């Protein structure tokens, strides 16, 4: 073993959660951050609209309201102790980002500016509240850049463009490290560690139309699954209402926060029918279903599967007047084209580049797009990975960010809580891992640490070649989007599962043609496809298993939420080629489940 490194803490992934974990872990322990991308390429950078905290910079707001909104948004599947923990930390977390230099937009008094977002409300009046702290429509970009910059300032060790392939466990079931391939050379590297933090992001690339980066292939979740660890609530995936038609590129909810409205093919504003109180600012699952319901009723544009988002200033002003929307000082809300451009510059740019549409004068064609992984690696609120229904921690293993399931998002995540999640839980995972590492020993590495990684690669190189990986990938994305998407039914998902299993079998017959070592991206893409197929299988099995509708999981054959049978988290293991399912209770502190109306 030529390339062995030793670090007390190893962080896998360098998006917001990984960087935050790296920053905090490195203050207390010798730490390395390993990432398959250059850190600034991570998908946190694509987040647009904002990060939520009850700063109250324009109007009254409280962490308790943020808690309740998040619980309600989660359709009561979020763990309320963890949600309360997150919303109580939110204000300090956002202020800490500002203290790190993050260039938030400002109020006239020079404070951090905030905007309305879906499901963010004043709990007393039920009216939208300005809770999303923002930097134009590139808040995630600013967070990613700022955290990377702070890591440079604090001399965090980075291994850029190293793909982690395997997790190393002792015979006694303790963390020993990870194995990664250095993309530039093809060499395997063993990272001997006391603690490992997984921060590898979500798996939205299993779906055809998605806002997610190519890198979002569920690597961390799949690696742990192969080692016999469970994943939680994998049936819950968020479809964001407004993706650019066909491409899936995200159009932030901030567009509706600034007054944009959804219009069907008949030119009608339809959200008041579905969410009479907050209308276009209802929770994402509610809005995505409303769009699909309109499309199915034949109200798509030109009979096709898309509708319009309208942020033309004169239209916004007209709807704002109808809704009686006001500024914080009580004056009527109005917006100009210049203000739209200043607040949403990237959205305007995306529409002009990809659609040839100018949102200041034209309507944007949109459709729901696969956006966010609510499920994932089960953790407690300190980022410790837990492995059963009793929440037993796995020694030395942590997870944070989109790959983790704390669960603060439950069955449906509120907009802007993802950026908050990765800052808060990235920090705590880093702190906990460093604390653990200080009192733990290095456990012996397996005799041949690289064996697992090597054999995975060999399998991909030795296939017969009668199947094409790109074709398998395309078929998987299509079946997942169409049959395990926004609306789900048992019989259709059974056929989807057969298809995924067929694709998994065919995957054994792909053959990586690139025999080189330097930047063998064909080999890596094939390995990622294996992860996606494993994750897609689990998503489908868990979605079939949950015979109710809750948040992002909508069963047409079981249209009601069923708290009596299903107010519980799913845990799923892969054992002897089969998926095994168990459950754990939802933590309920203050808020008993009730009907969810927006």
């Amino acid at each position, binding site marked *: 073993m030529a390339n062995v490194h030793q670090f007390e803490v190893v962080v896998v992934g360098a998006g917001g959660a990984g960087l935050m974990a790296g920053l905090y872990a490195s203050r207390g322990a010798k730490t390395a951050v390993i990432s398959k*991308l*250059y850190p*600034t*390429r991570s*998908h946190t*950078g*694509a987040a647009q609209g904002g990060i939520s905290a009850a700063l109250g910079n324009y109007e009254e707001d409280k962490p308790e309201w943020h808690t309740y909104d998040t619980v309600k948004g989660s359709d009561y599947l979020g763990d309320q102790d963890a949600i309360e923990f997150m919303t109580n930390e939110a204000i*300090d977390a956002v*202020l800490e980002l*500002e*203290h*790190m*230099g993050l*260039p*938030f*937009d*400002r*109020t*006239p*008094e*020079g*404070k951090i500016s905030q905007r309305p977002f879906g499901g963010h409300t004043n709990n007393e009046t039920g009216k939208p509240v300005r809770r999303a702290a923002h*930097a*134009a429509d*590139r808040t995630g*970009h*600013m967070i990613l*850049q*700022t955290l990377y*910059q*702070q890591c*440079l*300032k604090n001399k965090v060790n980075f291994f850029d463009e190293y793909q982690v392939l395997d997790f190393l466990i002792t015979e006694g079931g303790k963390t020993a490290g990870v194995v990664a391939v250095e993309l*530039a050379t093809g060499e395997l590297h063993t990272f001997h560690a006391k603690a490992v933090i997984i921060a590898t992001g979500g798996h939205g690339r299993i779906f055809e139309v998605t806002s997610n*980066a*190519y*890198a979002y292939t569920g690597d961390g979740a799949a690696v742990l699954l192969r080692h016999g660890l469970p994943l939680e609530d994998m049936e819950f995936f968020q479809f964001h209402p407004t993706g650019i038609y066909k*491409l899936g*590129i995200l159009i932030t909810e901030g567009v509706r926060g600034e007054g944009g409205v959804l219009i069907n093919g008949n030119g009608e504003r339809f959200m008041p029918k579905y969410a009479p109180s907050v209308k276009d600012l209802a929770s994402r699952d509610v809005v995505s279903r409303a769009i699909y319901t309109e499309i199915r009723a034949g109200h798509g544009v030109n009979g096709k599967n898309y509708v319009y988002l309208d942020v033309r200033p004169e239209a916004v002003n007209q709807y704002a007047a109808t809704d009686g929307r006001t500024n914080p000082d009580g004056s009527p809300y109005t917006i100009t084209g210049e203000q739209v451009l200043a607040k949403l510059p*990237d959205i305007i*740019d*995306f529409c002009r*580049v*990809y659609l040839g549409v100018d949102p200041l004068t034209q309507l944007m064609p949109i459709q729901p797009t696969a956006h966010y992984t609510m499920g994932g690696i089960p953790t407690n609120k300190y980022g410790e990975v837990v492995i059963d229904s009793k929440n037993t921690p796995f020694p030395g293993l942590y997870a944070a960010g989109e790959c983790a399931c704390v669960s603060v998002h439950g069955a449906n995540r509120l907009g802007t809580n993802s950026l908050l999640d990765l800052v808060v839980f990235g920090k705590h995972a880093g702190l906990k891992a460093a604390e653990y590492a200080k009192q733990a020993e290095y456990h012996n590495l397996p005799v041949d640490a690289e064996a697992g990684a090597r054999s995975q690669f060999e399998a991909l190189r030795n296939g017969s070649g009668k199947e*094409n*990986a*790109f*074709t398998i*990938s395309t078929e998987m994305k299509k079946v997942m989007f169409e049959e395990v998407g926004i609306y789900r039914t048992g019989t259709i998902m059974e056929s989807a599962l057969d298809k995924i299993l067929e694709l998994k079998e065919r995957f054994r017959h792909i053959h*990586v*043609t*690139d025999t*080189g*070592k*330097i*930047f*063998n*991206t*064909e080999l890596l*893409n094939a390995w990622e496809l294996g992860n996606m197929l494993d994750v897609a299988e689990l998503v489908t099995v868990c979605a079939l298993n949950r015979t109710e509708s809750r948040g992002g999981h909508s069963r047409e054959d079981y249209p009601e939420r069923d708290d009596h049978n299903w107010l519980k988290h799913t845990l799923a293991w892969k054992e002897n080629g089969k998926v095994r399912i168990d459950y754990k209770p939802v933590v309920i502190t203050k808020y008993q489940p009730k009907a969810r109306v927006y």
Partner: protein
Amino acid sequence: MQVTLKIFRYNPEADKKFHYVTYTLEAEETDRILDLLEYVKGYHDGTLSFRRSCAHGVCGSDAMRINGRNMLACKVLVRDVGTTITVEPLLGLKVAKDLIVDMEPFFDNYKKVLPYFINDSPLPADGRERLQSPEQRARFDDTTKCILCAACTTSCPSYWASDDYLGPAALVAAHRFIYDSRDEAAAERMHIISETNGLARCHTIFNCTMACPRDIQITKAIGELKMTSLTGKLD
């Protein structure tokens, strides 16, 4: 429609020198150049190597030369460049394989300008944010947009001539902090970029501004830094 895609190929493990391979594909005018590269990799030649991630112009992975100009392959469509398309790696950085260049020298230059917020004064006593007016915030807005794709630096003839020049992207990073009213290390950064490998190497060619996929007015930003270096004034 049919497009002809001519791609620069170089595999250091097999080739003595680079060559071009031409592929003929069916495409739509709204396809991204990145979509075409994915298709070639998926169905014509799996060994074709390039970087990509977000696929909509915000991560900065896939900067390359398309018909001779630096662009992001995910942010340019067939209808923007026509049906005869040549794709080559960025100039001025060593080619590692096909369209992938060695980014290390680029990031090394970035790191030289102290590209991080520095303010060692005590935080506001109430623990809240440091105040900054919308006007102060607007002063450096343009340069906060940088995604470090290297399209600017590798379009700069001064950088081609000498890769010890910091290059436009590093100067953009310096600008982002120097004009931030909350930051306290402007003088230190001005000192670094006023060395011979810094501002003086910019000859106002505007290639960087033309290349920037985020529409940052890079030449203007460098001009402001030059003015500050002459006058010592930040406004």
